[in-house]
């Protein structure tokens, strides 16, 4: 199958390209880029007014399978991903059973292949059962196909174990994705600690709960070597520490999620558990720091931390509800609206944060539109105004704080390996 994507604005930060041009896809690869290419039998995709960008990569999602198939499956999560413009996703290891052994990795990969919509790169757990006690069989996980390691959902509080994890991971070149949280400072917390938690009487999670562990791991990384990627960075102090460490040339990177640059802890005032996530929504000052860091590159990438939860579990008193929100279908729209249309990021910088940077962090041959690379391509209508509606989610869950928001810009088409998997919201048949 050949496609000629015609007349779009091709934005490819890796190759420093940002121009209106044509792009030919052949045999699943990017075959040719240039103005006025002739179709030569290729199916023509009219892309006037659209951005043509390397497929978006969400390096932090929870697909819940195996274990909580009522909340999400690899199929429903894949559908949500391609609807949101993503061509690759990294499911975290906190499934049941945990992705801490070869069989679990093989299950995810075989299910992903059967579904066949989106590239799925499994993340293996750092420790067995994510218990923070013994290292997982990391060589085996790597061989089975894991491209990163993480106990996401839980911190690795034992510093000695973290030291050894970093040292051991250097043998395989896998980054450790850390969920930074001091469990004692966290204890019982459900929202950011500050004026809002004080008036609402909810237990606070201080921002130092995150930054103290970021600081620890920067120190450790200096000592051990290895590679750390800090997940879901939310606080201004963490950002300062990371900015300093980057200046020193340490091998680290970090992500933030759309809710950390579009919402503050004031949203919690109605006690709606769709505003409950970990790390929590923080202060306005933190939001401003996150935005600045996205602009200056201290924050490398945007990942949704897509965390589906059953409606009956979220529809509860704030303390009793689980942490987390879905994000695959809103991530791009929120980012375009709050970062690009607001003038903070150029389109090319946004594409760096959502495609090129995650590919580079993970060592994937993706995130660019170079000749010969897999044709993972997202077509974005940057001006499209739309409303995020509960009934339109592909995800099995609908725990989003953004329902009802008017957004500007969304994915128009998603192509994975030269195959159109989503076109104007319609998802191609899998299985």
């Amino acid at each position, binding site marked *: 199958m050949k496609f000629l994507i015609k007349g779009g604005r091709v934005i490819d930060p890796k190759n420093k390209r940002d121009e209106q041009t044509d792009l030919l896809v052949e045999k699943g690869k990017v075959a040719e880029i240039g103005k006025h290419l002739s179709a030569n039998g290729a199916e023509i995709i009219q892309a006037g007014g659209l951005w043509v960008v390397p497929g978006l990569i969400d390096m932090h999602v929870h697909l819940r399978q195996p274990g909580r198939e009522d909340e999400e499956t690899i199929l429903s999560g894949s559908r949500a991903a391609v609807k949101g413009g993503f061509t690759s996703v990294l499911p975290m290891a906190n499934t049941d059973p945990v992705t801490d052994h070869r069989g679990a990795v093989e299950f995810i990969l075989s299910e992903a292949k059967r579904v066949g919509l989106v590239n799925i790169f499994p993340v293996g757990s750092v420790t067995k059962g994510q218990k923070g006690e013994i290292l997982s069989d990391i060589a085996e996980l790597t061989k089975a196909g894991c491209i990163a390691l993480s106990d996401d959902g839980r911190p690795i509080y034992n510093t000695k174990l973290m030291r050894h994890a970093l040292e051991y991971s250097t043998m395989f070149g896998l980054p450790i994705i850390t969920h930074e949280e001091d469990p004692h400072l966290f204890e019982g917390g459900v929202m950011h600690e500050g004026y809002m*938690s004080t008036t609402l009487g909810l237990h606070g999670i201080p921002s130092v709960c995150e930054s103290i562990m970021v600081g620890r791991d920067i120190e450790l990384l200096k000592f051990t070597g290895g590679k750390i990627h800090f997940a879901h960075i939310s606080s201004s102090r963490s950002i300062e520490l990371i900015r300093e460490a980057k200046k020193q040339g340490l091998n680290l990177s970090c992500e933030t999620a759309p809710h950390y640059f579009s919402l503050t802890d004031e949203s919690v005032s109605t006690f709606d558990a769709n505003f409950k996530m970990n790390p929590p929504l923080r202060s306005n000052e933190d939001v401003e720091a996150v935005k600045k860091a996205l602009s200056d590159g201290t924050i490398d990438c945007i990942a949704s931390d897509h965390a589906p939860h059953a409606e009956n579990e979220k529809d509860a008193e704030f303390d009793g509800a689980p942490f987390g929100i879905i994000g695959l279908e809103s991530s791009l729209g929120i980012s375009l609206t709050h970062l690009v249309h607001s003038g903070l990021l150029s389109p090319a910088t946004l594409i760096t944060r959502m495609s090129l940077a995650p590919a580079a962090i993970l060592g994937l041959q993706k995130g660019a539109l170079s000749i010969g690379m897999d044709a993972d391509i997202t077509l974005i209508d940057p001006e499209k105004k739309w409303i995020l509606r509960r009934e339109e989610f592909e995800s099995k869950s609908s725990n989003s704080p953004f329902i009802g928001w008017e957004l500007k810009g969304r994915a128009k088409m998603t192509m994975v390996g030269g195959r159109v998997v989503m076109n104007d919201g319609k998802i191609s048949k899998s299985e």
Partner: protein
Amino acid sequence: MTQWVRKDLLGLEELSGEEIRLVLDTAYSFKEVLDRPIKKVPSLRGKTVAMLFFEPSMRTRTSFELAAKRLSADTMTITSQGSSLSKGEVLKDMARNIEAMKVDILVMRHQAAGSCHFLARSLKSSVINAGDGSHEHPTQGLLDLLTIEEKKKRISGLKVSLIGDILHSRVARSNIWGLLKLGAQVTVCGPKPLLPMGIERMKVRVTCDVQEAIQGADVLNVLRIQLERQKGSFFPSLREYAQMFCITPERLGKAKKDLLILHPGPMNRGVEIAPEVADGPYSVILDQVTNGVAVRMAVLFLVSQVNMKEDRDEISD
């Protein structure tokens, strides 16, 4: 004249000064009922009030029950022991079941902040917050206001100090909102770890020095040290707490002569308040209890009027 338009009473934060005034004025008229030989009026006849108490309570629960009975409502009480909550039934399901039995007003105490807001959103019945975690305890705030006003003949301009565990205290939050809205000046005082972050943004004075909190104060509201919430590392020991913060006759040496001392109960005598002070001339602790019934009658009456109006509107639709 302010009209009461709320189906629920969830907190004092969202009330205006006029609405608080209306509750207090209504409470004064019910207080007069309590002094009659026949202490009952028919205002809530045919109405049912359910008390859901997920945390132990003696004072608040009996006060609400008595208030409802004085208004001729039928009452029932469900506590967490022996209820289906211990079988894992979620709060929402349980409350909807109770509502399905045509209960008009739910009075709830629950350990989770915001749990009453959560229920109020999903139920047509009125919800009255009888204490939600560390968030609010609005009827306690109102009865404290009533007690202060009754003795001082005003709220505006008074200096009121809240002393103790501010972090975990729903009484403190409701007091702060209510007092500020009626024009009082508020000081909070306690060990530093028990003074929550950003509290000064509520426009209160903050101090760790109990003498500073006492000096010049018209009212002290001495909060209970909640032993059940101190499993953390907030202060070293009750002994040291008492040494630093207990309201003793000696500490009151320089206090105003017409000082009022309130305590929401139950008291830890000798910890936050010395027995001689609790039973002494400044203490209005038992007046608070009496006023609690009047305030709760007022609240039950006001929300039921709104709920009845909604019922009528539905019939006329």
